């Protein structure tokens, strides 16, 4: 039952998004603009700063993620569908997980374009070890989106929600961003130290578990009027 509701929510979001592709296109354009601004700001005399690629990749993901989170729930608010979703005889955690997976899928789609772009513009060997990078990106995105989905859903009814989402989201998710940046930076070293990457991946997994558990636990009381 739980998995079925998750699947239904995910499919609903996917269908709505495929019809307009509004969030996908705007988020992607925004993320690419972010990377370009960093390229203009940091690349001097044709040379990218050393070790900058990992940070820029994660900043672009965080910014684009905030945009996607805000838009996803703004759409639900405009058409009053969030209330319908909450009125449905479905477990709240299942709705949360469905929403979370939708956002994670969207962000991973964006990362597939961002990673080659950053690798190209900043001359970073990001794609040298795709397996490690995929693990780091998925875990980091999950941690970021776990908190983001919860806060964006709760902010739907709040005033000045557009400003408040990044204000609340960034201080909480900073550990995930730090671990993601450090793990990616370790991956870019000429000699990869598996123990360092392993440590940061373990930390990412820890934060994922804590954030998802807390979010699942608080989604129900927080979404009840």
């Amino acid at each position, binding site marked *: 039952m739980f998995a079925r509701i998750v699947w239904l929510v995910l499919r609903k979001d996917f269908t709505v998004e495929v019809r307009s592709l509004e969030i996908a296109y705007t988020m992607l354009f925004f993320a690419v603009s972010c990377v370009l601004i960093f390229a203009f700001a940091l690349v001097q005399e044709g040379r990218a700063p050393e070790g900058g690629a990992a940070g820029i990749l994660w900043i672009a993901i965080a910014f684009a993620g905030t945009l996607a989170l805000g838009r996803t729930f703004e759409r639900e608010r405009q058409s009053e569908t969030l209330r319908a979703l909450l009125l449905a005889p479905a477990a709240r955690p299942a709705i949360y997980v469905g929403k979370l997976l939708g956002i994670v899928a969207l962000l991973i789609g964006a990362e597939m374009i961002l990673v080659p772009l950053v690798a190209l513009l900043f001359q970073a060997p990001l794609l040298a070890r795709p397996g490690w990078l995929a693990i780091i990106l998925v875990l980091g995105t999950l941690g970021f989106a776990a908190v983001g989905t919860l*806060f964006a859903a709760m902010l739907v009814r*709040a005033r000045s929600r557009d400003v408040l989402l990044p204000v609340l989201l960034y201080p909480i998710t*900073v550990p995930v961003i730090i671990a993601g940046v450090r793990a990616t930076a370790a991956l870019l070293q000429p000699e990869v130290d598996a123990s360092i990457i392993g440590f940061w991946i373990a930390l990412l997994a820890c934060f994922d578990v804590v954030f998802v558990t807390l979010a699942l636990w608080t989604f129900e009381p927080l979404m009840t009027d």
Partner: protein
Amino acid sequence: MQKWFTPAAVVCGLMLAVAPLLIAQAPYESTMGLVQKIFYVHLPSAWVFLLSAIVCGVASIRYLSGGNPRHDRTAWAAAELVVLFGAITLITGPLWARKAWGVWWLWDVRLTSSLMGWMVAIAYMLLRKYGGPGSDKLGAGLALFGMANVPFIYISVNYWRTIHPTTNVVPTLPTSFGLPLWFSAVTFLLMFVLLLRLRVGLEEQRARLDALYLVTDE
């Protein structure tokens, strides 16, 4: 206001007056000299900073599970104290670090996580001030995530090889250093309790006033 408040406030005032004398009398630490005395303010304020974050988180859990506005008022008051004591911690820390490490700030795990904990409390206050209706529950959720950060701040120095002194320093202190420290800690704790009570009292009066307005409107 409760009966205990005024005598406790007087005691706290006296302790605040005596604490500097005790700190001045404590012996000079051999390597750091005078700067080490910042530690008598830094450590107690850091403890109270973490304590306020825990009080805020626990009150938020109780508010989320029970819905009693009393717990919400406690959480709000505690969040403001997180900001206050966090500010003291984050100002006194770099003053000491400038002398001990030669720099004002390092991106050390404990420093970073403390700064983030402090920023979560500021985000909480921004949310409560500008979030409008429903921000009480949302704030409770945020406080919960903020509290999850506390054990991380506390253990960070023992697990990472950081430059910040570890938590093992305090139990090994000789009495001449320990006495002013514990005196200062009790003073800060008392100050925390008093400020919390005062702030919750203010919110209670505000809630009563709102209720009266509602009655007159009807």
